C-alpha cells in the first residue's frame, strides 16, 4: 500500500506531467531524451519532496527541478557558445516584415499567423539558444510569471526580462525565415 506521502506526491505531480514533458521535449529536441529528463526530474522531486513546503507553488517547484536536471545533464552541450547577433533585434519584427514585403489587409496578416504549422512554431522555438528558449517556453507556453521564472531558473528578474524580450524577437526572426522558406508569402509585392 502506498503511504499518504507517496499518494500526495503522485496527486500533486500528475496534473503537470504533460507540461513537464512538453518543456522537456522542446529543450532536448527528441522524445526519448525528453522522457528520460522527465523521469529523472520525477525521481529527484520525489527524493526532495520533504523540502517542498506545503501549499506553496508545486508546479514552479517541479519546474525548477526539471531545469536543474536539464542543465546538469546537458552541461557540456549548452556550454558551446551560440553565435547569435542581437544588435539588430527590433520590436514588431514580423509585423514590419509583413508590411514591407506583402500587400495584405489586416485580416490577411492574421491569416498569415494562423497558417503556421505547429511544427514550424516548435522548430523555431527549438532553434533559440537554450537560455532564451527556456524563458520563452516558461512564460509564453507554460504561463509562469516573471517572478516564478526568476525562481525556476535561479536568475534575477532583469535577466529573465532581457532573455524573454530578446528570445521573442529572435523567435519572430526565425518564424519569418520559415514563412519565406515554406512559401507562405504568396502575395509578395513586386
Amino acid at each position, binding site marked *: 500500500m502506498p503511504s499518504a506521502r507517496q499518494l500526495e506526491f503522485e496527486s500533486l505531480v500528475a496534473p503537470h*506531467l504533460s507540461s513537464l514533458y512538453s518543456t522537456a521535449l522542446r529543450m532536448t529536441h527528441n522524445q526519448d531524451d525528453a*522522457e528520460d529528463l522527465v523521469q529523472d526530474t520525477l525521481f529527484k522531486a520525489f527524493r526532495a519532496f520533504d523540502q517542498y513546503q506545503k501549499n506553496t507553488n508545486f508546479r514552479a517547484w517541479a519546474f525548477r527541478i526539471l531545469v536543474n536536471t536539464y542543465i546538469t545533464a546537458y552541461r557540456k552541450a549548452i556550454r558551446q557558445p551560440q553565435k547569435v547577433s542581437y544588435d539588430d533585434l527590433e520590436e514588431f519584427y514580423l509585423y514590419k516584415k509583413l508590411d514591407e514585403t506583402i500587400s495584405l489587409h489586416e485580416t490577411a496578416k492574421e491569416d498569415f499567423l494562423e497558417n503556421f504549422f505547429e511544427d514550424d512554431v516548435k522548430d523555431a522555438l527549438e532553434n533559440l539558444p537554450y537560455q532564451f528558449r527556456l524563458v520563452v517556453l516558461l512564460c509564453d507556453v507554460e504561463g509562469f510569471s516573471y517572478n516564478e521564472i526568476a525562481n525556476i531558473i535561479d536568475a534575477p528578474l532583469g535577466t529573465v526580462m532581457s532573455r524573454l524580450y530578446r528570445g521573442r524577437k529572435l523567435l519572430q526572426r526565425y518564424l519569418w525565415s520559415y514563412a519565406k522558406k515554406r512559401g507562405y508569402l504568396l502575395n509578395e509585392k513586386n
Partner: protein
Amino acid sequence: MKKTDKKKFDCKDIEKNVQAYLDDRLSEKEILKIEEHLSYCLPCDKKVEFEKRLKKLIKLKAAEKSYPKKLELELKKIIRGHQH
C-alpha cells in the same frame, strides 16, 4: 503629478513597453498612457494586436497535446521505490 508624468506616450514608448504591457507588468498609470496612445494611433494599435495574436498562437501551437503514458507508469514505480 511630476512634469514627466504628463508626457504622453509616443510610438517609440509603445515599442519600448509593448512586451511588458502584453505580460501585464506595467502600472495602472503606464497602462492608461499606452491605451490612450493606442486609441488614436492606428499603426501602433495594429502592431500591438498582432503581437497579442502571435503570443496566443505560440502558446496554442507549441504546447504538446499529449504525453507518453509510460510516464505515469514511471511515476508509480518511482513512488513505490522500484526505480533507481
